[in-house]
């Protein structure tokens, strides 16, 4: 297993900070979006796009590229931040995000945003689609790996488990699902709306290898993805415990920030708390 150097860790933490700051700026510009789930996934996306995924922004349709599906498509702001920071497109394209002539949609659209592999936004599809992609890769002897990010609230959708069963049946070891487990959904805490306790046991019972980590610790995230490479007989679920709205005091663990938009004052305070430069 490759261990991250201190320098790499600092660089990835910096990327996560940038993803958070960009996400909030984008959402503020658009006047719509989902800050809570974007902030909770920042380190996961930072590690994927700046450490784990074998991708080339200059060649986004390279057949052997690793695939990432943002099943929790509401976190589009964070994905756009990661993609633009990684060099897929210029972040200034999002200056008019929300206008009808902005190419980038509210939720990811693979025909509109370079680097997006799958249209998403309506919850539940990522694992089953990822299973199909992984089956295709296996048949065509393509060494690519598929990563799917979903939320813990999203796991309430039955289709997630249909996809999980399929991936396990076919021993899709190059499929990695990451559950951004922040325990907050639109209407309130996940444990109150529809408890999804024993998350690890649920995936294990479906036949997945489970790795549980702190989803804000870039070292643990990177190590989990490295460890997943060593699993040869089953798909891997990384359960990443996170905080919804992470990094912004007034957003953390508050379901009101699932789909709320920071005003100029709130954005300024949020960026200050994140230690991000203020425009």
């Amino acid at each position, binding site marked *: 297993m490759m261990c991250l150097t201190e320098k790499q860790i600092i660089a990835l933490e910096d990327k996560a900070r940038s993803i958070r700051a960009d996400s909030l700026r984008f959402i503020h510009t658009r006047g719509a979006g989902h800050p809570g789930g974007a902030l909770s996934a920042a380190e996961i996306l930072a590690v994927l796009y700046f450490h784990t995924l074998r991708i080339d922004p200059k060649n986004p349709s390279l057949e052997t590229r690793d695939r990432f599906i943002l099943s929790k498509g509401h976190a589009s702001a964070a994905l756009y931040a990661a993609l633009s920071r990684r060099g897929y497109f210029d972040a200034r394209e999002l200056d008019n995000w929300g206008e009808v002539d902005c190419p980038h949609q509210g939720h990811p659209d693979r025909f509109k945003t370079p680097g997006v592999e799958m*249209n998403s936004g309506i919850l539940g599809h990522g694992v089953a*689609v990822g*299973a*199909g992609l992984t089956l295709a890769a296996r*048949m065509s002897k393509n060494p690519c790996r598929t990563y799917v990010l979903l939320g813990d609230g999203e796991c309430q959708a039955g289709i997630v488990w*249909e996809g999980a069963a*399929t991936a396990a049946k*076919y021993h899709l070891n190059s499929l990695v699902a990451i559950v951004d487990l922040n325990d907050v959904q639109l209407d309130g805490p996940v444990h109150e709306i529809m408890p999804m306790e024993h998350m690890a046991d649920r995936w294990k019972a479906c036949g997945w290898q489970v790795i549980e980590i702190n989803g804000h610790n870039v070292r643990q995230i990177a190590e989990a993805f490295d460890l997943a490479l060593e699993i040869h007989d089953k798909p891997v679920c990384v359960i990443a415990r996170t905080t919804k709205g992470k990094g912004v005091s007034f957003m953390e663990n508050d379901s009101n920030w699932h789909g709320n938009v920071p005003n100029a004052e709130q954005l300024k305070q949020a960026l200050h708390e994140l230690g991000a430069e203020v425009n």
Partner: protein
Amino acid sequence: MGELSMRESYGRALADYAALNPKVVAVDVDTSMSTLTHFFAAKYPERFFNVGIAEPCAVDVGAGLALGGYIPFVNAFAALLALRSLEQIRTCVCYTRTNVKIAASYAGISDFKDGPTHFAVTDIANVRALPNMTVIVPADANEAAQFVPLVAEYEGPVYLRISRGNTLPVHTLGAPLQIGKGILRREGGDVTLVATGSMVGRSLQAAELLAAQGVNARVVEIHTIKPLDVDLLVESAKLTGALVTVEEHAKIGGLGSAVAEALAEIHPVPMQRVGLADEFCVTGRTVEGLLDHSGLAVADIVSAVQQVLKRK
């Protein structure tokens, strides 16, 4: 009746075509002995994926296979594909423009023994409203088989509607078939019968009965509900001045609606729709008997023609 059921003809054709096109794969939902993809599964087990009783999953897995460069035929009962999986079809197939072929078996009321839960009488309405979707309804077993390579080689989402049983054979093997192009089955100048699927054969029978009454009915087969062959419909409307649509589908939203929508804006003529009433059908002992009982008898077509002629 044809010797082969439409589903068997489809199932065998898929297995045969797979030999020519290694990109073709099949997904099924524990119905391979019903959709008859078991022919495919037996020949190409490594290209066949049975996801269990999970139609939404089958569609999503199909979308993933398509994203990975394959041409998946997703097989299940039409009632489930077009209703339970409709959101998957919309989001992951039509919106994402994945090259998925929805092979919807047991369509219409062809699963006559099982009743309304297994009938798919709104499926054409459900899927034709979706952008990027092509909707194909073969008329008989041979046509279903001939559509397999056409559908596979057509780039983009397709809904292929397969009947469980035998339908009256109307198609000559080898006759040219083209997605989006209707077929003139019978010349006639008094009225046009516009039929799809199992009702093409019955419409031809109705035309013979009408001929005996001195009414010359033109019969047009519309196998592609979307995109609709508007040119042929307008030509027929102009030529005969009256139309009757005939389909094994609810009157709401199917072929009749599609034809009415198109002609209303271009060349409206008196029109009558033969289709299923806005109510749940009953279970039957034979498909022929159930079609007769459900307002789709040859006599019902004749009667609709008589009515529309009064409005000419």
